[in-house]
């Protein structure tokens, strides 16, 4: 991921201006948090964690993991299909441990 993404975490409650940044990035969209968005270097949104079925939040269920992989496919310039498949497999392995 690090080859193509600068990853940051913003805590809407603990970071100063966190709520303001969240509102600017997310607008009126709802669906709880965590919520993710991938931006280009100009700050333009490329894709978010809002899947057709709603915000995937922390991707745990298979369809949520699949949407996260889709987020990468829609935004990456350096990762190929194998890279994304590898990330998806790792995430899936971790997510399995969280499923009830």
């Amino acid at each position, binding site marked *: *991921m690090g080859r*193509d*993404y*600068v*990853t*940051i*975490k*913003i*805590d*809407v*409650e*603990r*970071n*100063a*201006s*966190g709520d*303001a*940044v*969240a509102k600017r*990035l*997310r607008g009126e969209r709802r669906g709880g*948090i*965590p*919520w*993710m*968005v*991938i*931006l*280009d*270097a*100009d*700050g333009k949104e*490329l894709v978010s964690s809002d899947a057709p079925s709603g915000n995937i939040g922390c991707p745990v269920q298979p369809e949520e993991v699949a949407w996260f992989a889709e987020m990468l496919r829609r*935004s*990456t*310039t350096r990762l190929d299909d194998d890279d994304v498949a590898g990330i998806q497999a790792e995430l899936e392995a971790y997510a399995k441990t969280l499923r009830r």
Partner: protein
Amino acid sequence: MAIDRPGKLTVGAFAVDSFPDYYVVDRGGNLRVADLQNGALEATVQMLLAEPAPSSLPTELTEAAERAVRKDKRLLVLLGGDDDRAAFNQVSRLDRALRRELSNEYETVPAPLGGPLAAALGVTATEATALALDARGAPLGSIAMGGLDRDRLWAFAREHKVASADAELILARALAQATQEKKRVLVHLGAPW
């Protein structure tokens, strides 16, 4: 080393080839520099002193410290009896924002006064004490729990919590890095709860 064992075993083991010969050991007990040039001693010592002290985290704090590191929080050790902690909790219970501040910023660890954790932390106070530590166990400050009021607890909590980074700054830096490295920015919006 003024006196070696018979057979100069230590001199042999460290390949001492002149006197004086310098071998610098850090605070963690690790040999860091061997056969140091005499003129480099001061700079070497200063370099090691500038490093953070090695962690000596008591085992009672291990789990809470792991959570504190993961969540970028501090540790709050409440040294005292059940009544003392109940009184402490009563102060925060009266102020929802204060309760949330403590929950967001601190991993709380209860422990008895005079117990092994108090001893490990070097606390000799005989009255109930709240002790703020960083996630590596370094003490930041303490406050007596007896007679504690809301304002003093607010001040204590604010003084010792992790400095809050500005989200605008975090995002601006990430975008600047993305521009420079021709990357994307993945933003994760979360909350303590």
